[in-house]
C-alpha cells in the first residue's frame, strides 16, 4: 500500500453555468520517502490539488487516502509550506515563536516545544535569527523559517506549494538543496507543486505532469538521476537535459482523448 493515494479526485467551483472544473479524475500514488513533484501549465489546478491533499479543501469527487484512511481534514502528519511566506508566517511572532506555535496541539511540554523548534531552526541554518521577526529577514530566510516550522511539526508528508517561486535564482538553488538535505535528515515524504520544469526534474524522484484545466495526470515520469543531486553536475548531465525536454514536451502536449 502506498503512503499517500490520490484517487480519482475531482473538484469544481461555482454552480450552474458558471461552474469551473479545476481538476478531473486525477489519480496518482506517493510512496514513503519519495519526492514527487507535480507540474503543469498555469491554471491546471495544481494548488487546488495540493489543498485537497492537505485536507484544506473537500474535493467534489474522489478521495485522498493517507495510510489507508481517507483525508477529511488537515491530517496530523502533514505540513504545508505555502508560496507566500510573507503571508503565511505570523508577523507578530518571532522566528522561534512561529516555528514552535503549531506544536501547541501536539501535547508537548513547553520545554520540548522550544527544543524541537530550535532544532528545526538549526537545520535550516537560522540559529542566529531565532529572536528576529520574520519581516526583518530576507525572502529566502523567511521561506527557511516556513520550512523549519513544517519540519518541527515532524510530518510524514510535507506539501510544498510553489515554495520557491518568489525568491531570486541563487536563493532558489540554496532552498532546493536545503529541501533535499532535510528530506534525508528528517525522513519526510514530499509532494511539491511547481511550474518550473528544471526544478521539478532536479528535485524529484518522480514527476506527475498535469494536463491543462481541468487537470488530469498527463504522464508520470520517473527521475533516476544520481544522488546526491548537485546544482552544477546534475544539471549538466545529458540525462537531465533529456528529462527536461521530455517533461517540457509533456507539458505542452494536448491531453489525450480531447
Amino acid at each position, binding site marked *: 500500500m502506498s503512503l499517500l493515494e490520490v484517487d480519482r479526485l475531482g473538484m469544481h467551483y461555482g454552480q450552474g453555468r458558471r461552474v469551473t472544473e479545476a481538476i478531473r479524475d486525477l489519480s496518482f500514488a506517493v510512496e514513503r520517502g519519495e519526492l514527487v513533484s507535480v507540474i503543469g501549465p498555469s491554471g491546471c489546478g495544481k494548488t487546488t490539488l495540493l489543498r485537497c491533499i492537505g485536507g484544506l479543501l473537500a474535493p467534489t469527487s474522489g478521495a485522498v487516502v493517507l495510510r489507508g484512511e481517507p483525508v477529511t481534514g488537515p491530517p496530523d502528519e502533514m505540513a504545508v509550506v*505555502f508560496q507566500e511566506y510573507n*503571508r503565511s508566517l505570523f508577523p507578530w511572532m518571532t522566528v522561534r515563536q512561529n516555528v514552535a506555535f*503549531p506544536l501547541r496541539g501536539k501535547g508537548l511540554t513547553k520545554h520540548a516545544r522550544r527544543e524541537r523548534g530550535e532544532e528545526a531552526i538549526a537545520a535550516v541554518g537560522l540559529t542566529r535569527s531565532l529572536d528576529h521577526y520574520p*519581516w526583518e529577514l530576507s525572502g529566502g530566510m523567511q521561506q527557511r523559517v516556513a520550512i523549519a516550522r513544517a519540519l518541527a511539526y515532524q510530518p510524514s508528508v510535507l506539501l510544498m506549494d510553489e515554495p520557491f517561486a518568489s525568491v531570486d535564482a541563487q536563493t532558489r538553488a540554496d532552498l532546493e538543496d536545503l529541501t533535499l538535505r532535510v528530506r534525508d535528515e528528517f525522513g519526510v515524504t514530499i509532494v511539491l507543486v511547481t511550474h518550473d520544469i528544471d526544478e521539478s526534474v532536479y528535485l524529484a524522484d518522480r514527476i506527475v505532469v498535469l494536463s491543462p484545466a481541468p487537470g488530469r495526470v498527463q504522464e508520470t515520469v520517473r527521475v533516476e538521476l544520481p544522488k546526491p543531486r548537485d546544482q552544477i553536475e546534475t544539471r549538466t548531465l545529458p540525462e537531465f537535459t533529456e528529462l527536461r525536454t521530455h517533461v517540457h514536451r509533456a507539458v505542452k502536449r494536448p491531453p489525450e482523448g480531447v
Partner: protein
Amino acid sequence: MRRRLLAASLELGVPVVLVAGWWLWSTRSESFYYPPLPDILSTFADTWLFERVADDVLPSLARLAAGFTIAAIFGIGLGLALGLSRPARLTLAPTVEFLRAIPTPALIPVAIVLLGIGDTMRVTIIATACVWPILLNAIDGVAGIDTTLVETARSYRVRRLDRVRWVVLPAALPQIFAGMRTSLSVGILVMVVSEMEASTNGIGFFVLQSQRTFAIPEMWSGILLLGILGYALNFGFTRIERRVLRWHRGWRASALGAA
C-alpha cells in the same frame, strides 16, 4: 534633519503662538465672560493643583476608565464572535447599525429611569458610547484577516481557542486599537455630558456648576483641564499602542519596502 527640526519647531510653535495670542488678546479684556488668560491660569492653579483632584478629577477618570474597559471587553469579545461568523454578522448587522446611530446622550434620560442617577448610569452611558468604534473595528479586523494566515493555522490543526487567541486576535489588533483610540475621545465627551446631568461631582459637573454660579474663570479652567486631559490620555494611549503593535509598524514598513 533640517526638515525634522522645522516640523518639530512648528509642532511646538503653533500652540505657543496660540496661547500667546490668547494671552495678549484677553489681558485687556473687560468682558465678564472672557476673563484674561492670567486670571484663568491662576484660577486653574488654585482649583486643580490639587484641591479638587480628589473631588472631581478622580471620579471623572474612574468613570471613564470603567466605561472604557467594559466597552473594550464587550467590543472585542463581540467583535471576535461576529467577525468569525458570517451568518451572525449578517444577522446582526442592521441591529448594530441602528443602535450605533442613536446619539448616546439621548439615552441618558432612559438610563436615569432604568439605573437611577448614580455612577452605574454614568458608566453604562460611557460604555455604550465607547463600544461602537471598538466593535465595528474588531469585526472588520477579524473578517479581513489574510486567508493564508488562517489556512496556515488550520493546516497545523491549531485548536480553535489557540487560533482565536494567537492568530485572529493579533491580526485584528491594529484595527481594534484604532477603534479604541476613537472610543477614548468619544468616552471623554460622553463622560462630560453624563456629568452635566443629575450629578454631584466630576469635571463636567464642575464646569456647568461654575457657569451657573457665574464663576467664569473656574468654568474656563475646567474646559482647559478637559483639553489637557484629553491630550494626555491620547498621548498615553498612543504610547501603549506603539509598544503593543511594534511588529505592525515594522511589518508594514517591510511590506512597503518590498512592493
